[in-house]
């Protein structure tokens, strides 16, 4: 009996220690991100959804603490996943009450990462669960997978270089689920539908992606609140 109790205590102790390690790592990542109060980034945005033919556009990304983010296309129409892009790393890490779970390790883009799951304790939180893949050595979030209540599931993969010391990526790929697209002929007035079935099949059951390649950051120079209205 004593042995069983000792084993249980040991296991509890190990999981408690792991959770503490995960919390400490999250704190380190947060501390890195908190160096940035605001930024204006210029980026190239590529929308890759199977049933959308769109050109690459130039965008400006405005960010202000704690988690305000706005993407403005310089010129033209922007196509973004509904509600998803506003879920940036700061808003995920900024969740007030959440439980962290150490979920082991994984390799992302050839880099060994620590897998940490974040579970909000608030019943009304938009985020249901987030899995973070953190490069422990550099305290950088390499990837995140989030499930939300209203906006489905999405993934963010980040690639760092110039601004790695501030936790700002040079490239971010945002992946999300899309529903199959079919528009009635009465709406499109396109009665001449000569698309082959195999071509139509290519447009279905695909994940959508929005890729941001950041060309410059203007950090901590102030961003007006009016930008986010």
């Amino acid at each position, binding site marked *: 009996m004593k042995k069983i109790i000792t084993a249980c205590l040991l296991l509890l102790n190990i999981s408690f220690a792991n959770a503490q390690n995960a919390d400490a790592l999250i704190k380190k990542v947060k501390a890195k991100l908190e160096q940035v109060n605001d930024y204006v980034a210029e980026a190239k945005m590529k929308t890759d959804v199977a049933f959308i033919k769109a050109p690459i556009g130039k965008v400006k990304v405005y960010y202000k603490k704690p988690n305000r983010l706005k993407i403005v296309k310089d010129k033209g129409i922007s196509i973004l996943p509904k509600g998803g892009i506003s879920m940036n790393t700061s808003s995920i890490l900024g969740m007030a009450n959440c439980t962290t779970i150490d979920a082991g390790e994984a390799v992302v883009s050839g880099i060994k990462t620590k897998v940490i799951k974040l579970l909000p304790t608030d019943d009304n939180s938009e985020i249901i669960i987030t899995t973070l893949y953190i490069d422990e050595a550099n305290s950088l979030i390499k990837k995140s997978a989030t499930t939300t209540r209203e906006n489905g599931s999405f993934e963010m993969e980040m690639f760092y270089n110039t601004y790695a010391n501030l936790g700002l990526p040079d490239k971010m790929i945002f992946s999300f689920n899309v529903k199959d*697209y079919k528009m009635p002929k009465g709406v499109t007035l396109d009665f001449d539908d000569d698309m082959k079935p195999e071509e139509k099949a290519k447009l279905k059951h695909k994940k959508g992606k929005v890729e941001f390649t950041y060309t410059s950051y203007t950090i901590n120079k102030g961003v007006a609140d009016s930008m986010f209205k």
Partner: protein
Amino acid sequence: MYTLFKVELYKIFKRPRTYIAFAAMTALITIIQLGLKVDGKEYIEFVLGDLSNTLQVDGKLCNGYFVCFCILNLLLIHVPLLIALIAADMISGEANMGTLRLLLSKPITRTQFVVAKFLAATVYTLLLLVWIAFLALFVSIFIFGTDDIFLVKNNYAVQIASNDIMWRYLGAFFFAALAMVTVAAVAFFLSQFAENSIGPIVATMSIIIVFTIFSTMSIPLFNKIKPFMFTTHMVAWKEFFDVRVNADNESIAGSIQRPDKIINSALILIAHIVGLVSLSAYFLKKKDILS
């Protein structure tokens, strides 16, 4: 022949009925523009449909380019009636007034007579299209401004950058001109078989309506005869507003998804025009002019 052509133009533009088409187009386009100015946002939501459940499409979607596309989509079905109104009257009108015999007694060949009359009808058709282009494109740009164009098709959506649109409209209007001249050729051809213009106008519209029904219904039996109908090819102007994508699914600026379709349709329409005008000349040469 040039004198005859000028006389025919004079006759066309002297008749008040010629201006009905210009007035009707002005009224129709203004109504569409007014409707989109007031309720454009709702219309865009309707057009985007289910797409807006997954994606957020931001920007000035209801811009001048988009409005022009909507107008062309709706109006190019109705414009043939206005063209038939004049083209179907070219020979039958003369027969009705009793001036055909007089005209053909002049020192011109019947072929020259047919060509001059058809060229005059073509000028009218082109001027009507220029007027539509001015109202639908330039006035819409003035009212709604410009931005990228976002178009929904049956199986996919297309976004074209604003700096890649104008040449497409130029191509689309050239193609629409070809399509409308084909309608004029049909009406002109029918014109010589009647002694008043009502018959050819109604016959032209009936042909267009029946052919359009065949062209729009996806029934296997009809699909076999579709390629032979000029109405199937009249809508190929829309191909100017579809772009190719590269292996990374990035749209290629300045490209057209199916240029072969445009060329093929254009050649078929040109063949219709040449064929119908030649047949008109052939039948008129053989005709015993009694009126």
